[in-house]
C-alpha cells in the first residue's frame, strides 16, 4: 500500500475531532436521564403540550412557506430580472439576523404604535404572547431555508421540459402541475423538513414575542433556569427524539416513493 502523506492524516483527524465534537454532547445528554425520569417527564402535561405546540407551529410555518415560497422560488429559478440578487439577499436576511433582534423587529410592527399593529388589533389578531405570534416568528426564520431548497430543486429541472410541454398545448399552470411539480416535489419536501427543523429550534425570537404559550425550547429554558440541568435533560431528550422520528418518517416516505417510480 502507498504510504499516506501527513496531510491525509490531518484530514482524517480533523474529521474525527468534528464527529466527536458534535456527537459527544448529544450522546451524553441522551444517556443522562434515567428511564423513570423520562417516563415522569412525558406524563407531565406541560411538557406534552409544549412539544405538541412546537411541532404544530413549526408545521404551520412550513405550510405557509410552502404556499407562499413555492411560486417565489419558481420565479427566482426561472427568470432573470434586474434586482434579482437584491431579492435573493433579502430572502437570506433572516438567516443572518440575531434571533432576539427578529423578535424585537416583529414586535415593533405588531404593537399599537404601528399602523399594521393597529389594523391587526382591530381585526382581533394578537401577535404578542399568542400562537399566531409564534407562527409568524417561526415562518420568518424558516422561510429562507424553504425558498433556497426549492429554488435549487427548480433549477435542476431543464427548462426545455417545460418548453416542450408548452409547445404541446399545456398552459403555464398545467405545465407546472404535470411536469415541474412532479419533478420538484422531493425538493419541496426537503425544503419543508429544513424549514420546520429550523423553526423547531428557534428560541431567541420566540422568547421575546411569546414566552407563553410555551413552545418546547422555552419550556426547556425555564426548567433549566428554575430546576437546573438535571430536570431540563429529559425534556430535551423527548424533544429531539420526537423531531428525529418525524423527520425519519418523512425521509422514509420519500425513499419509498422513489422505489415505486
Amino acid at each position, binding site marked *: 500500500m502507498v504510504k499516506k502523506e501527513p496531510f491525509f492524516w490531518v484530514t482524517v483527524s480533523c474529521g474525527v475531532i468534528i464527529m466527536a465534537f458534535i456527537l459527544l454532547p448529544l450522546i451524553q445528554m441522551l444517556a443522562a436521564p434515567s428511564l423513570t425520569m423520562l417516563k415522569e417527564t412525558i406524563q407531565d402535561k406541560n411538557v406534552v403540550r409544549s412539544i405538541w405546540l412546537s411541532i404544530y407551529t413549526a408545521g404551520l410555518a412550513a405550510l405557509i412557506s410552502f404556499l407562499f415560497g413555492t411560486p417565489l422560488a419558481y420565479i427566482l429559478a426561472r427568470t432573470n430580472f434586474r434586482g434579482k440578487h437584491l431579492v435573493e439577499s433579502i430572502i437570506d436576511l433572516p438567516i443572518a439576523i440575531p434571533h432576539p433582534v427578529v423578535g424585537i423587529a416583529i414586535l415593533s410592527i405588531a404593537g399599537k404604535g404601528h399602523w399594521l399593529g393597529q389594523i391587526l388589533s382591530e381585526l382581533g389578531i394578537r401577535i404578542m404572547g399568542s400562537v399566531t405570534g409564534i407562527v409568524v416568528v417561526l415562518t420568518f426564520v424558516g422561510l429562507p431555508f424553504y425558498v433556497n431548497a426549492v429554488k435549487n430543486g427548480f433549477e435542476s429541472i*431543464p427548462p*426545455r*421540459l417545460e*418548453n*416542450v*410541454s*408548452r*409547445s*404541446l*398545448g*399545456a*398552459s*403555464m399552470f*398545467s405545465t407546472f402541475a*404535470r*411536469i415541474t411539480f*412532479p*419533478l420538484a416535489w422531493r425538493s419541496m419536501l426537503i425544503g419543508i423538513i429544513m424549514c420546520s427543523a429550523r423553526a423547531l429550534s428557534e428560541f431567541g425570537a420566540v422568547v421575546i414575542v411569546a414566552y407563553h404559550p410555551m413552545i418546547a425550547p422555552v419550556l426547556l429554558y425555564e426548567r433549566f433556569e428554575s430546576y437546573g440541568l438535571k430536570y431540563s435533560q429529559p425534556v430535551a431528550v423527548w424533544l429531539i427524539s420526537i423531531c428525529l422520528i418525524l423527520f425519519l418518517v418523512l425521509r422514509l416516505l420519500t425513499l419509498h416513493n422513489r422505489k415505486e*417510480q
Partner: protein
Amino acid sequence: MISIQNLSICLGEFHLQDINMDIEKGSFFTLMGPTGAGKTVLLEAIAGLVPIHKGNIILGGKNVTRLPPEKRGVGIVYQDYALFPHLSVLANITYGLHYRKMKRKDAQERLEQLIDELNLSHLLKRLPTNLSGGENQRVALARALIVDPKVLLLDEPLSALDPSFREEIRKGLQRLHAQSDTTFLMVTHDFAEALSLSDRAAIMNRGKIEQIGCMKDIFQKPNSTFVADFVGMKNLFAAQFKDTRATVDSLEIELARRPSKDHGYIAIRPEDIVLSKEPFSSSMRNAFRGVITGVLDQGLYYEIDLMVNDILFKSMITKSSLFELDIRDGSDIYLYFKSAAIHSF
C-alpha cells in the same frame, strides 16, 4: 406558411438581427450555421419560447408574435430529446392529447400509427432514462407529431446520435414528412444532412441570415465567403451520374454502386482522400493529379487544399505526413480515394 418579418431578439450578449424568411407550407426547410449562430434561438422564437424584441412571426396567415407557445400549434424536438423523465414512453407520447380536441378514436388511431411508424411498441411501458439515443429521439418525434402541429421544429435531430441510428432516424424523418402536412424546420450544422432531407435552406452566422434559397443555389452560388467556406468544407460536388460513374465538371469519378435516380451530389470526407508524392498502383479506383493550393494548421491535423483541374478538394493529414511528403503550397500531388468512400445523395 411560416413568415418571419424583421425579427430581432436580444438575449443579453446575444442578438438576432432583422431575420426575414418565408417557408412554404408542407416543405422541409433547413437552418444551417456554425455553433452560436443563433439557430436554436430562432427556433425557440418561432415556438414562442423567447421574448421578441421587434418584428413579426406569422404562421399560416395568423400573426402569432404575441401568442403564448401553447396557442401556436408549433411542435419542438430538441437535440437532447427533453423527454419527461417521470413519465413512461406512452405517457410521454400522449402528453399533448390532453390539450388537443380530437375524437378518442382518431387519437387512438394516430397513436397506433405513430407507434407503428416509429417502431415503439416494445418500449411503451419503459421510462425514457432506460432508452438509447435513437429510441429517445423516436419517442420525442412521436410526442411532437401526435398533436398534428402546423410546424415541427427539429433542433439538430441527428447530431447526438450514433451513426447507425442517424441513418434510421433520417429515413424516419423523410417518411414522416412525406406523410403529413406539417411543415418541418430543421436546424443542423451538417450540410450533407441538410441536402439529403430538405429542398430549401438558410445559412446563419452571428445572429444574421447570410443566404437563403434552394439547396442547389446555396451550394453552387454561395453569396459570401462565409457560405462558401461553410458549404465547401466537405468535398461536396454537384454531379451527373451514369451507371456507377459520376461526372463533376471534367472529372470522372468511380462510385461503388449505382446511385438512386433522385441523387445529384457526391461527397467525400477529407480524411478519406489519400495523398502521395509519386503515383502508385493500388486498389483505389479514383486517382487524380493535382496541385496544392493551401496548407492550414488545424492543431491536431493539417487541412490541405488541392486543385484538380478547376475543382477544389480538401484533405486532412497529420503533421508527420506533412513533413514526410514535403507538402507545401504549389507542389504537385497525387490523390487517391476508394469508390466506397464516396457518398451520393
